[in-house]
Structures are given as C-alpha cells and as structure tokens.
C-alpha cells in the first residue's frame, strides 16, 4: 500500500514537472519560430521605438475597415490615423484587443464602430474567435501574458481554438493559413454569395432611419446584451484610466440591421454620464449629407471602395474640426489602380503594374488572408473569390530578389472591373439576362440611361428576361432592370450594369457588374 502511494506521488510530481517542461518548451518554440510576419500593421507600428504618436485609432470589425480608410485620413489631415480592426469580432473581443493595445500606445481619440457591440452571433460564425484577438497579439512579446489575455476572453469551448492560435499565430507556418474550413467555402462560393447578398437587400435610407427611430422608441434602454455592455463599460473605464476620448459611430448599412439598432439607444443614453463619450450619428442626420447610394455598398452591411471614400471624407471633416487642422483629401493618390477582369470560367484576373527591375511579387494578400506566396514575375493572378477584394482591402507585397531586401506594400482598389469575353469585344449588340428568381408570372422591363446625356430609353414590360440592346453611339450607359410579379404586383428595380461603348473601336467594357446578371 505504501509503495503504491509513493508511486502515485512520484507520478504526480512527474506530471507537474512535465507541465512545467511543456510551458518551457512552449516559450522556447515560440521564440525559436517567431517570425513577426503575422503582426497586425498597427501593432507592429506601435511596437516600433520612436514612432510618431497615434492621434486617432479606429477600432471595430469588418464594418469599420470597409467604411474607413485610415491611410486617406492620414494623408488628408496630417494626423496619424490608424485602424485596429478584424472581421467578425464582437464587443468582448474589441475591448480585450483595445486593452492590450493600450499597454503600448494611447491615442488621443479612439473611434469605436458600434456593430461589434450589437453582435451576438459572431461566436457561431467564426472558427477562430480567440484567434482574432491573437492576430493582434503577435505584438505582445510575452507568450504567457498572451495566455492571460486569452483566459480573460475565452469560454471553455474556445480554449483549444485560442491555444492553437496562441502557438501557431506566432510561427512561421501561420502563413499557411491553416484555418481553412471556412475559407475554402469563400473561395468556392464567394462570388456567388456576393451577388446573392446584393440581390436580396434593397437600399432604403428612409426605412433605415425610421427603423432606427422605432428601435429607440420601443427600446429606450438599448438592447446591448450583458457581455457587450460589460465590454463597452470596460472601454469607458479604459478611457478614464488612459485619458482618451471615445467617439462612437455606426458604419452605414444598406438596410435596417438590428446589430446597429440594438446598441444605438443605449450608447446615446450613456453620453450624459461620460463626458469623454461622443456619439456621431450618421444614420439619420448625416446620411443625405454623406450621399451614399446603393451602388456604394458591397453588401447590406459593408461599403465598397466608393462608399468607403464617401464616409472617410465625411469623417475626415469631423476630425479636422476636432483637431483644428486642414482637410485636403487626395483620393486618387491614396491608391494604386489595378484592373480586375472577370474571366470566362468565373475567376477574376488581377493585373498589377508595380514591378521595378529585379523585383518579384512576394506575397499576394487580400485583407487578412495571404492568398499566394512565392516568387514570380508574372504581373497577374487569377482568383476565384472576389468577396474581400471588392471592399477595398487589397494588398500586394513586393520584395526584391536580392536577399534581405525590404518588403514594400502596395494597396490596390479594383476601380475597373471588366468582363472578359469575345462577344462583348466584337459585337455592338449585347444581351442581358435578368436572373430574378421570383415565383411565376414575372414581367421584365428595362431602362437604359446614357450617363452623359441623361437620356433614358424605356423598354416596357415583356415576358422575356433577356434584353437585347444595340448601341447607336459611343458613351457610358446604365442598364436598369425592372421586375414585376403578379398577382401581388410586387415590383422592384435593379441597376444591373454600366457599359461603356466605344463606337470607333467597336469595343464594350462593363465597368460595374452590380447584380445577378449574365452578359453574352
């Protein structure tokens, strides 16, 4: 009995020693493989000694980085504006993220986008909830400190996810984007999803305003769930502790979205208590001023580069007022332009004009996703998914073939989207198909607007969803499709595409493919 007991004690001691060895190995492996490649640019910047202090920090999720162009704001105001954003985060993660970041750098103003504080369903949507936090935590040098932060935000079921991210996020193979389960879905169905989303939502600013108002009348206390409310209050405490202002704004949506409406009234009601809190209402008051149209949206909740530019310019004026500085946006200078062509197989070809002598493309990146690696001198890449590209997070990294040369990063916005197809180039007549998927008894009508003369040609309702149009003169034309369903007489219209026709060369290019449409 005694020997059995001592064997148990021995085993227990061994177990404790093994756990210690495990953590020691963790630290060693972490150090050994630390490549620094996975640091969020803002973290990386904040960690650099002697950097210019950050004036304004935008914090939020995909709605933030698709509505604000920090680079443009920096150029236009001379202030140092940065983003600390990551897709699909809720308030809990935003708070943890910000708390960790403030250990390094305290900006003068933190602009919080409110969508994360109305989000309750992202936990199910994301496969790497804690990984999101950790994507930024590459900037935190002590892995055990990261563990502590992880424990602060993780629920038990997230621990394996977070632990795996905690390790591999820091390691060289993080570039391999191992979290592939969801990405493969995007790759395969991305483009289809994009069109579907576009098709299903209608932009309706009046309805948005009305519903926001209704939300506030019916729910004056606000609908923030306890977790998000706690996170929000934690950020307010951080503002007190670190002495910075908080601006709240809601990224515009194309339609009513409860994720925005829920926290709205609650946050407004808290303004009086917290003098550092400033709410910027751009849903009801400023929407006409910003001038957003449905064509400024990538989907119901995210702006495309055009929309991003509008909201950034609008926000820039507010910033200039607050900091008493000039605001001179040079929109074109902020981006390099590239051409995106839709190939016949449904993929997209991105063509770059960025290579200097002796330079090769190093890694091609879209948003947070590094899509392709390896040296090549080809100036194009074909990709199936267009989901993230359309919304302006589009980077290409280039590095010289010389060893040790610094990477340079280029940002691109796909201003021009061209359909690729022999028939479009050689024919003066195009056929457009309205792929509305209503139930039976459909009628279709078409409006063709010459965008230069504003003349409108109307083609009344017919039973055919195929529309043939022959160009008479050169110019840019907007094609609008009307759909009417009987017996409810439900009608709606869709701006389908803009076509530029050059009569001299006989070529057509489709500048914007806006909806579920096929062109032949």
């Amino acid at each position, binding site marked *: 009995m005694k020997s*059995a007991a001592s*064997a*148990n004690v*021995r*085993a227990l001691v061994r177990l404790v020693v*093994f756990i210690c*060895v*495990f953590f020691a*190995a963790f630290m060693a*492996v972490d150090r050994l493989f630390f490549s620094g490649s996975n640091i969020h640019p803002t973290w990386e910047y904040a960690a650099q000694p002697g950097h210019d202090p950050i004036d304004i920090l935008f914090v939020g999720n995909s709605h933030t980085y698709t509505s604000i162009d920090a680079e443009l704001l920096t150029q236009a105001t001379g202030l140092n504006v940065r983003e600390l954003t990551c897709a699909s985060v809720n308030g809990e993660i935003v708070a943890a993220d910000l708390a960790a970041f403030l250990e390094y750098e305290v900006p003068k103003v933190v602009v919080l986008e409110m969508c994360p504080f109305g989000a309750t369903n992202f*936990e*199910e*949507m*994301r*496969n*790497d*909830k804690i*990984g999101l936090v950790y994507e930024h935590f590459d900037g935190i040098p002590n892995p055990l400190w990261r563990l502590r932060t992880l424990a602060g935000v993780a629920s038990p079921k997230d621990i*394996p*996810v977070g*632990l*795996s991210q905690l*390790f*591999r996020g820091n*390691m060289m*193979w993080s570039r*391999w*984007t*191992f*979290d*592939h*389960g*969801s990405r*493969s*879905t995007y*790759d*395969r169905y991305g483009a289809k999803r994009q069109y579907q989303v576009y098709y299903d939502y209608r932009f309706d600013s009046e309805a948005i305003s009305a519903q926001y108002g209704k939300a506030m009348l019916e729910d004056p206390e606000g609908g923030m769930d306890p977790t998000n409310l706690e996170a929000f209050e934690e950020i307010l405490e951080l503002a007190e502790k670190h002495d910075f202002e908080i601006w709240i704004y809601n990224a515009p949506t194309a339609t009513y979205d409860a994720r925005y409406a829920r926290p709205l009234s609650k946050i407004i009601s808290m303004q009086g208590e917290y003098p550092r809190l400033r709410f910027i209402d751009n849903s009801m008051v400023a929407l006409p001023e910003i001038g957003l149209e449905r064509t400024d949206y990538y989907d119901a909740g995210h702006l495309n580069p055009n929309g991003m530019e509008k909201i950034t310019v609008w926000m820039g004026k507010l910033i200039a007022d607050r900091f008493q500085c000039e605001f001179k946006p040079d929109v074109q200078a902020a981006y390099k332009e590239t051409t995106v062509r839709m190939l016949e197989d449904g*993929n997209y070809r991105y063509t770059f004009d960025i290579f200097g002598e002796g330079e090769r493309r190093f890694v091609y990146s879209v948003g947070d996703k590094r*899509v*392709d690696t390896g040296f090549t001198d080809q100036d194009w890449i074909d990709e*199936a998914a267009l989901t993230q590209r359309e919304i302006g997070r589009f980077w290409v990294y280039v590095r010289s073939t010389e060893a040790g040369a610094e990477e340079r990063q280029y940002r691109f916005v796909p201003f021009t989207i061209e359909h690729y197809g022999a028939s479009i180039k050689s024919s003066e007549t195009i056929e457009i198909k309205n792929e509305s998927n209503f139930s039976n008894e459909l009628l279709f009508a078409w409006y063709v607007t010459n965008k230069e003369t504003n003349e409108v040609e109307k083609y009344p309702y017919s039973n055919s969803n195929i529309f043939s149009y022959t160009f008479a003169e050169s110019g840019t034309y907007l094609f609008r499709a009307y759909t009417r369903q009987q017996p409810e007489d439900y009608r709606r219209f869709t701006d389908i595409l803009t076509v530029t026709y050059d009569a001299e060369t006989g070529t057509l290019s489709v500048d914007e493919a806006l909806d579920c449409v096929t062109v032949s």
Partner: protein
Amino acid sequence: MPVGISFYLFQVTGYLIDVYRKKTEAVRHFGHYFLSLAFFPKLAQGPIAPVEQLAPQFGDRKRLDPLSMRKGAVRILIGLIKKAVIADRLAVIADSVFTAPGQLSALSTAIGIVCYAFQLYTDFAGYTDVAIGTAQMFGIVLPENFKQPYLARSVADFWRRWHLTLSNWLREYIYFPLGGSRVRTVRWAINVLIVFLVSGMWHGSGLTFIIWGAIHALYQIIGKLTAGPRTALKTKLFGKKVIACDILSVASTFVLICAAWTFFRADSSGNAVKMLARLACGDWSFSLAQLGVNAAECWTSLILVILVIAADLISRRASILEWIENRVLPIRWMIYLVMLFVLILFGMYGSLSAQSFIYVSF
C-alpha cells in the same frame, strides 16, 4: 435519434441472444449491466464491447494506476491527433470534391475519394483511440476496432481489419446463424448479401448505404468465386515476388474499397455514379481550387496520408504505443511534447473547421 443507439442496441441484442443460447450467464448486478451498456467512452461510437466482457470489469476494485493513466492519456492524444489533425484536414478536400459531384476533373475526384477514405478511417479510429484510452485510465479494457484496414490484401481481409467489433457482431449473430460458409455456394452468397445489406442498413436508411453494403457483398462473392483463377494469375505474373504481389493486392483492394466509400459518402447514389463516371472522363488535370486548399495544405494532406500508411506499416510489426512506452523518460517526454505540439499547431478547431465524428450519426 438517441446518440449511440445503433451501438448499444447491437450490444444488448448480442447479450440477450448469448444469454438465451446459454452461451453466457446473465449479469446479476443491474449497475454493472447498465454501466456496460452506458459506459460513456464507448457510448456514442463504440467499440461494441460484449456485455459479458465488460460487466465483470466493473465489479473489480479499481485503484488509481499511474501507468494506466499515462498509457490511456497517450492513447487519447494519438486519437485526438488522428481526428483533429488528420481527419478534419482531409475533410476539407473530401468535402470540396463531394459537394461538386461530376463537376471536377478525374484527378480531383480521385484525390477527394482517397482523402475521404483516410478521413473516415482516422476519424473513426481516432474516436476509438480516445474511447479506449479513456476507459484505460479507469482501468477498463475495451476491444480494439481497427487493424491496419487499408493494408488488407482482399476485401474479405479488409473486413477482418475494419470496425472489428461490428464485423464480429454481424458474423456471430447473423452470418453464422444463417449457415455461414458451410452451405452451398448459392446459399452462401445469399448469406453474405444479407449480412452486408444489414450492415448497410445499420449505417443508415438511405439507398447509398444499402448500395454500399451490396457492393461489398458483391466484392466478397466475386472474390471467392474467382479466388482460384486470381491465385493462378498472380503466380504466373509474379512467381515468387511476394512483395510485388502484396503491393498489387493491397492497392487493388484499396481501389475497390474507395469505390464503395464513394456511395457511402455521396449525398445520393446518382451523385456517386457521377463521381465514379468522372474518373473515366480522361481529364487528369490538377487544380488546387477544385480541392479547396492551397499548395501548402495540399502537401500537408499528402504527408498526413503517407504518415497514416507508414504508421500502419510499422504497427503491423510492433505496437507504436509499446515502443513509446519502452523509451527512456527524456525520449518519451520528447515524444509526448512533439505530439502535443502537433495537435495544438496543426489541429482543426472551431465551429466551422472542426467536423463532427462521422460515425456518431450512425
């Protein structure tokens, strides 16, 4: 359906038949009997342990045994690696291919089917390892379920290696009572067909599972009927080159098994046919986009498949677990650490990446 119902129904049915036949004595202790049915590690996916083997173990007085705890923990770790690192990673490719039946190239389709074969194996074997390891930590011995199935030299051999506890149950309680192989050939063929149709229906009520069972029955029947000529052909072709003959046998068996798995995994029998027909289309172009992975992940998946095969080849001669156990402490710990890091670093986690256990739905 209640979780694990197929497994414990078979367990209790076998027990009742054995008691009825007086092959075993009834378990008099209700707690032991009930626990042998509901013992949590094997409840959801087996192994289908005979009550008469399991119940007596619950009567033994158990003490905390550090050695069993350690061995059990290592077995669990290996199971988790099989599931989270290998099966769920291969699932990305398999799912990409099976969701687009007949639309991909022949090579992509073939890769997808092979990935599914290994996904299914590592998924199920992974769970079994976790179940056996967990039971081992409590001092309970559960039966093994796999014995390097993809190294089988024939389909009959495959069934002596795949899901052993189910195979044993079917043999014991259906095949033998029907007369087994000690009957005329026609009757034997009918017996085999019945056994495999039952096996198919046990996996699910869909037509795909029934076809899968029928295909395996057909394999067995044709295999037996052509055994003589095939042996003669092999002798003529390979003579005394046993290894070459073995490789051909293993490879051809694997191909047959994979063809059957296509029906097992496909959403419908039509889709399975489309996929198999696609293999004959002659388009052997390679496309990462079709597989839904990037180059690194494709290579990783290939390496994992090779590792599974290598581990099975080694396991034929000696138990890897025993080999680890016999190393000196520093080496052993190093192996444990490597396994832990492999699991953490390369595992698939999260609600979208991680997959449910496949057999839990049966």
